[in-house]
């Protein structure tokens, strides 16, 4: 009974990896949607009343709701209430978006307010429309500030998918539970599950660091320089006066 069968990890690797893929898919779709809703909420929060009140109320409520409560509420509550039935995948995405758009709104708000007022004024003084100033001047600079925090949120999202086991989403923890129920090796399998989460967190950290470098000016790192190489070469030709 005391012997750990580490070989189980290898035997069940395809199942576990499939669970991980599901977790990443749910989190990725939720992240894209949360970025959009979060930005909208941040803009509302910075607008005049009553928009700012509505956004503040939303943010303060949903920041405090645990993912487990959110998903049960969406999957069992809302579907009963509205008579629509979500798939487990959809319910997971909605549950995350509800929570994380509140967090991302705060991340965007602080990043937007960190941009000096003179940036917007310079854009407006040049005769650029307010919308274009936001899109081409304020937002790119704010996004650069927000990227490290967005990365942290993404890692949090992936970990939060673990509670979606309660609605039967076949993510890492659900898969692990299934395998444990037939092999009775919880220590081994949950260690494997933890390892997978850590690996993903590590990979995401790398990805977001690359993004940060990509958005730094001047661009740092090989990837960033490669991405911008065409414009950089053009600029260098222009600078040489040719």
């Amino acid at each position, binding site marked *: 009974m005391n012997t750990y069968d580490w070989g189980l990890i290898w035997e069940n690797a395809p199942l576990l990896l499939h669970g991980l893929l599901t977790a990443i898919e749910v989190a990725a779709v939720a992240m894209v949607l949360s970025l959009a809703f979060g930005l909208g909420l941040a803009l509302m929060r910075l607008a005049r009343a009553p928009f700012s009140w509505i956004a503040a109320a939303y943010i303060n409520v949903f920041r405090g709701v645990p993912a487990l409560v959110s998903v049960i509420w969406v999957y069992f509550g809302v579907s009963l209430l509205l008579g629509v039935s979500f798939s487990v995948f959809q319910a997971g995405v909605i549950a995350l978006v509800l929570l994380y758009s509140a967090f991302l709104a705060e991340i965007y708000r602080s990043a937007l307010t960190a941009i000096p007022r*003179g940036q917007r004024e310079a854009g407006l*003084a040049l*005769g650029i429309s307010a919308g274009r100033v936001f899109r*081409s*001047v304020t937002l790119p*600079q704010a996004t650069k500030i927000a990227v490290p925090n967005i990365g942290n949120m993404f890692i949090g999202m992936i970990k939060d998918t673990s509670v979606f086991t309660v609605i039967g989403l076949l993510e890492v923890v659900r898969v692990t539970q299934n395998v444990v129920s037939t092999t009775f090796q919880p220590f081994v399998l949950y260690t494997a599950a933890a390892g997978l989460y850590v690996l993903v967190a590590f990979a995401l950290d790398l990805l977001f660091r690359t993004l940060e470098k990509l*958005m730094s*000016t*001047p661009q740092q790192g090989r990837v960033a320089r490669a991405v911008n190489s065409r414009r950089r070469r053009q600029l260098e030709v222009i600078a040489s006066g040719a």
Partner: protein
Amino acid sequence: MRQDGSPVSGPPVAELRGIRKAFGSKEVLHGVDLTVHAGEHVVIFGPSGSGKSTLLRSINLLEEPTEGSVKVLGVEYGPGLEPGGPRGKAVDLRRCVGMVFQQFNLFPHLSALDNITLPLRSVKGVGRSEADERAAAALKRVGLLPWAASYPSQLSGGQQQRVAIARALSLEPELMLFDEPTSALDPELVGEVLGVMRTVAESGMTMVVVTHELNFAREIGDLNVFMEDGRVVETGGRELFDHCTSARTQQFIGAVL
């Protein structure tokens, strides 16, 4: 009067009438009039907090006056006068008026060249390659073409301000506003920026300059305006610096020059 004694005869480019501006309950401009004629170089000077910058910023409506009339190139933009009358849109006004800021306000995420191509493309609707050409020409005029690929963080303050001037000029404005353009610079770098501004003045550009550089003001100022406490104390041509009538103007000029 121009410095060479010839009268400024151009049509008015900007006319401010009875400009009042209050921030909350504190009024910082108490009814200021100013007319800027085509080709004229107006210098506004005075102690800190006198409302110089606020007055300048109300010309392009970065500060919306609380009361009064702002007329630029014959179009009324002010909040005062004729309720319901035809009023221009701020974005149209700003497309005819360039501005240079104390803190340069270059866009840090764009190269020097792209700081100029962004407004060219979004305001003038110029295509990518033509925008590159025109931006390069603008940089060349301020002697910074070799820095086209550099980012603002890689440039000195003086270079950044020259890019900012090139950026505003590339849009071919009818009027250029300068808001203490050398106040944030190391003393060593002031000269290069004033040099560029001198060239702009010599090209016949209509200019309104808020500055503490009274030697420069004496050199280019056709109309010099001394402000204090939200009011114009005294105006005059070049002779103002030697023969002002107000004791307060004399005291200020004596302390600065």
